[in-house]
């Protein structure tokens, strides 16, 4: 009986799958559940709500809430963190803060560029101003930091976009730029600095990724120099790949394989000792554009600068098929086993049936607003945002 009551109490959480960080829990865009290709604005449980400010951060989902950030004001100096009920889009709470770091950005991006991260109990939001906030799911502040307040030269004149990750009890905040470049490990409990690691000086818009699980987690830090794989507890290098990498699309983890946007695309396999790696393959025809590679089963998918979607085998890099999408694209695709979903900058969502021999566009949805974010997926619906709106798109 006790177990039954507990199950009932937990029921709302079981109805919606979590999507806890940029490109999902695994950070690779793969959708673990079913998702209809016919999601759209007119679905039975679809909704759209107005947002109070700009943003290209992606939504995340924890429990029965969808979280998103925004920035508003003449200098984008007001930072918004918001939670909405998944079912109807009703605002559960909103917290507003003021930016303590620089808010100057290129017109295309904005201060609310990085995507939030959650461990299912707390949410962490980072902004281009390098303000970092940790709140519980009810919107109560746990702690905050101002990393440009701490280090006034930690900024990028074009804006910053690296999304934080949570590894165990550590928040990894990447603050990499031309002037004062570093990544910090912050205590999830109180925000204090556990470690601060000097990083290559150079603008860097990629996001870290977590590999492994439990006490064996490692974090990938990508930069123009390549990849540094660190221990999140102390920031120390575990191994390095030093053949250069992109500073826009991020690496994607597929099991023990790491797909690095480097010299096209380079596949690395971490060795069992966790201190070294092997290069499996490299293909300069698989270089992604702005979005990062996406995983579905044994296949990887990249959209290049010419908006060509390529399907290749993760294990060998063998290209299986290619097709042209309608661009231009800034967001990364997300994919179930059957379909890939991607939005172009003009707000056109394209659904591609990812067959074994070819890809075929089978559905589309036109949101009519600029979309730069990567969708979140939960409970059979896609969550997408623009500068003005947040949508739940369902069948």
């Amino acid at each position, binding site marked *: 009986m006790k177990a039954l009551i507990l199950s009932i109490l937990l029921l709302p959480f079981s109805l919606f799958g979590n999507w806890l960080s940029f490109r999902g829990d695994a950070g690779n865009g793969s959708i673990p559940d079913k998702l209809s290709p016919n999601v759209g604005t007119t679905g039975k449980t679809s909704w759209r709500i107005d947002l109070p400010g700009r943003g290209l951060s992606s939504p995340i989902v924890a429990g029965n809430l969808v979280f998103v950030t925004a920035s508003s004001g003449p200098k984008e100096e007001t930072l918004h963190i918001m939670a909405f009920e998944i079912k109807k889009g009703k605002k559960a709470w909103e917290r507003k803060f003021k930016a303590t770091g620089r808010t100057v950005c290129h017109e295309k991006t904005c201060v609310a560029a990085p995507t939030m991260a959650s461990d299912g109990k707390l949410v962490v939001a980072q902004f281009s101003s390098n303000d970092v906030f940790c709140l519980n799911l009810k919107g109560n502040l746990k702690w905050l930091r101002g990393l440009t307040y701490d280090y006034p030269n930690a900024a990028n004149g074009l804006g910053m976009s690296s999304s934080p990750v949570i590894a165990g009890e550590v928040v990894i905040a990447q603050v990499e730029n031309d*002037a004062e470049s570093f990544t910090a490990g912050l205590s999830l409990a109180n925000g204090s600095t556990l470690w601060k690691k000097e990083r290559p000086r150079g603008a860097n818009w990629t996001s870290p990724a977590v590999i492994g699980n439990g006490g064996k987690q490692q974090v990938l830090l990508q930069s123009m120099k390549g990849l540094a794989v660190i221990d999140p507890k102390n920031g120390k290098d575990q191994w390095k790949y030093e053949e250069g990498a992109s500073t826009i699309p991020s690496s994607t983890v597929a099991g023990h394989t790491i797909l690095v946007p480097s010299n096209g695309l380079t596949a690395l396999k971490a060795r069992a000792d966790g201190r070294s790696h092997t290069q499996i393959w490299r293909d300069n025809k698989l270089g992604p554009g702005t979005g990062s590679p996406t995983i579905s089963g044994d296949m990887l998918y990249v959209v290049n600068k010419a908006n060509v979607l390529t399907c290749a085998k993760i294990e060998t890099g063998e290209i299986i098929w290619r097709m042209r999408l309608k661009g231009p694209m800034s967001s990364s695709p997300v994919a179930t086993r059957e379909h890939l979903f991607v939005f172009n900058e003009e707000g056109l969502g394209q659904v591609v049936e990812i067959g074994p021999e070819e890809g075929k566009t089978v559905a589309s949805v036109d949101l009519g607003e600029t979309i730069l974010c990567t969708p979140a997926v939960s409970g059979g619906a896609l969550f997408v945002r623009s500068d003005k709106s947040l949508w739940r798109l369902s069948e």
Partner: protein
Amino acid sequence: MKITQTPLVLLALGLTPLCILPAQEKELIDALTRIDSKGKGNAEAVQVWSAIEKLNASSIPGLLQAMNKANDLGDNWIRAAISEILSRSEKRFPQKQVLSFLENQENSGSSRKLAFEILRENKPALASSLVPNFIDDREPTLRRLAVGELLTSARGSKDTTKAAALFEKVLQKGREVDQIKEASNALEKGGRKVDLQSLMGFLPEWKTIGPFDNTGRQGFGKPYPPEQEIDLDAGYQGKNDKVKWSAFSTSDPFGMLDVNKQYGEVKEVLAYAYTTFDSDSDQVAQFRIGSKNAWKLWVNGKLLFARDEYHRGKTRVDQFVIDGALKKGSNEILVKVCQNEQTQSWTKQWEFCLRITDPTGTALHSRDTSNK
């Protein structure tokens, strides 16, 4: 002056008296106002943060008062505290005290802006009626709202004379670049010549020396002779030849000093620009520099800020706002501006603009003839 609660006031507001002991409230406020950079004070603040749960809306004036003492980080902690309290107070809050706090310009601009936002979210009609009063406010974000209303009226006016008068008032009262630009553009369309350089306090008259070597971006950190002494008659070894100081001025409305005009479109070089500013008093000031190149700024021999970044976006007016001070009399201002090795068309600019304002954004003007 700290505003204190009386039981009568609380009852009139329908608020219950504080459930929290004054000592706990003090401990919380102390922790939040002790927050400092690099995570100092975070652990202590987290430890006492649960006291927020026991506070109700009657604590808001005290928290606003605490914001006066807090730095920007503490400000955000207190902002969160007030937000959490308001979210469970069902729009009840001590309106008169919040209004009184807003009206007292002795309070910090940030805390007064928050007081206004509390009113705007909970009493929008009242908040709206207050906006015209902000036209001379010391807090730029409040002043901006009142200037914004003038602009709205000017845009909507079919009477060109009335619209021009409103735009003129924007020029007089406005402190924000975009608002000044809009009014200036509108007036210039009607034939009025606006001297933006003077209005906004740009420094147009300089002495420059260069080019010095910046190969491999190494010159940024290299202290060439102008960083050791300012001798306008001296000559030094430059990147290629001997270099000496020469006069250089700009007529650009926004004070942009295009260094390429002085030395040609050369790469991997740097130059120094020097000027003086005759201040009528000892005063705090903001040095507002814009540059897409790497730069350093010294005032009276003290390095105020340095930025080692090239061509990440365009040069913008007020791109960097740096707090500093002017002494009464002549002040020496030295800018080092660097050009890197990139060859793309969008990397050819070698430029900066600089203006000086008081903390409210009001332009300061030199008493001497060059940079008035």
